[in-house]
């Protein structure tokens, strides 16, 4: 790579041009794009599991239908994103199989929230309300990404998230209006998920990789900016339901236009994500492993059948 080539590339980024998978790009850029989108895609796939646990138990027909549809969309987003990651990783010879199996050997991480337990029906609602809210804020910021295929696919993803948001809020609102037990269940879920949501956007001090992604405009907003947007929108909404948040430092400061909050245990959560040591990490990875490895026979059979049927035609 010549300095001139790199300069032209960085000029394109500065001018707001989009980079495509077949364009020339520094290896560093390609690797960061793959890492980001791979992680995003796998997080969508793993993000299906906490809610999947509640599909068979959804308490009425409409909730059952909506939850199936929502989990389906999550897998769908995983599919869209992994396809983009696979195309970006084509020069490295990576295909779908590699993208999935990387998870089993800890070569790709997924979001902290999907390592956590969802022990009650209220958790299924809170995931749609808070986790999807956080995910939408993050994804909205990525609509400006310099990587064209990512920006394009995120338009569709954000549009589909609009139903997720309404579904989550609908479940939460029903519980908030409900019996004392239902409200208690909701409060417990809020308390359980809040620290995870504070970690969700990442530490204020961003990693060198994250900083390089900012330079390349693969992402354009800081962790702290996104967290502030989230708090600003969601704290008043949670409180309005008569719920409390487990953070006594939570306060808005008009002069800075910023919220103060108690920092989550960064080390604990980072360790969990790095080592897949959360309460549900291993069980959910095992589900994905079963889906993928234990059913290799299905995919192999379909390839074989395709060849046989083609030969007959």
């Amino acid at each position: 790579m010549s300095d001139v080539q790199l300069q032209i590339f960085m000029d394109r980024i500065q001018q707001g041009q989009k980079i495509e998978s077949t364009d020339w790009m520094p290896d560093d850029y390609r690797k960061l794009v793959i890492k980001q989108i791979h992680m995003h895609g796998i997080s969508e796939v793993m993000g299906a599991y906490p809610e999947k646990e509640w599909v068979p138990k959804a308490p009425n027909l409409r909730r059952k239908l909506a939850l199936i549809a929502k989990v389906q969309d999550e897998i769908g987003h995983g599919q869209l994103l992994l396809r983009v990651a696979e195309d970006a990783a084509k020069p490295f010879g990576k295909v779908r199989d590699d993208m999935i199996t990387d998870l089993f050997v800890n070569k790709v991480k997924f979001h902290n929230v999907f390592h956590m337990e969802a022990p009650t029906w209220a958790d299924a609602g809170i995931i749609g309300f808070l986790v999807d809210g956080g995910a939408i804020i993050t994804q909205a910021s990525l609509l400006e990404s310099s990587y064209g295929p990512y920006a394009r696919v995120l338009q569709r993803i954000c549009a589909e998230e609009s139903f997720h948001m309404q579904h989550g809020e609908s479940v939460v609102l029903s519980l908030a209006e409900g019996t004392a037990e239902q409200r208690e269940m909701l409060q417990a879920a809020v308390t359980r998920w809040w620290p995870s949501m504070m970690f969700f956007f990442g530490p204020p001090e961003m990693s060198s990789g994250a900083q390089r992604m900012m330079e390349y405009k693969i992402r354009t907003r800081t962790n702290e900016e996104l967290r502030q947007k989230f708090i600003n929108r969601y704290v008043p909404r949670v409180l309005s339901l008569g719920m409390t948040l487990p953070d006594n430092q939570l306060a808005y400061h008009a002069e800075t236009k910023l919220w103060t909050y108690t920092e989550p245990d960064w080390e604990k959560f980072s360790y969990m994500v790095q080592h897949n040591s959360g309460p549900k990490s291993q069980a959910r990875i095992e589900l994905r492993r079963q889906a993928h490895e234990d059913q290799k026979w299905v995919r192999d059979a379909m390839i074989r059948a395709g060849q046989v049927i083609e030969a007959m035609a």
Partner: protein
Amino acid sequence: MNQAEQQLSNNYRTALIDLLYQMADDELTIGHRSSEWLGIAPDLEEDIAFSSISQDEVGHATFYFELLSELGEGDPDKLAFARTKEKRQNARVLERPNHDWAYTIARGYFYDVFDHIRLQELLQTNYTPLQKGVQKILREERYHLLHMETWFERLGVAKGEAKGRLENAVITIWPDLTDLFSLGRSNEILRKEGIFPISESALSDKWTQQVKPLFDRTELMWPGTPHVMTGNGRLGVHTSDLQQLLDMMTEVYRSDLIATW
């Protein structure tokens, strides 16, 4: 005044309600089982496709429960969630666990062929609300049948492990199939009253005519027409698998029967 509110004869009403329970329970049970594949299907693209099928099934069940509700049977959610095992009229094969992908595809294919025949016959029903819904539902079911048939054929053609698993699935499913063709205690009346035009044996024959050629094409051994009745789900005789399914499905619902969720 719509037909549901009209004075239907007792015989007509009872038979119609029976048939609707059979259809609603079939679709809810298989829809629930299908949804268990969410997130664990053999590939992501299929995961999404299969999930649409489970939504359609639960959606169709909802439609039939709504018809029952119009006939005075009560709230659709209550019908779906509060009825005990003995009240359920689904075919037993649908309550069985999913086993592996081959079992799921074989059962799905066998059921979809049956359901498709049932729906086509119902285009002639004299109960208009059902006839109108069936016209719509039939169009969705065609995709289910196409999808299941494509999978079934390909697993068979692939030979090797896939075919072996498919053969095992057929052996496991076969004894469970008999009550699929049962029309329950209202069998005779359904035909006499013009609600459902054909007999149980005609249903079973039509099914065989459609399924057997695919066995031949994929060189699967045809186990003969299913005939030994092991227990009739249409009469509320079910396996413990259904109890386990219901325990799971109604866990939140049962935790507070009056709450709104």
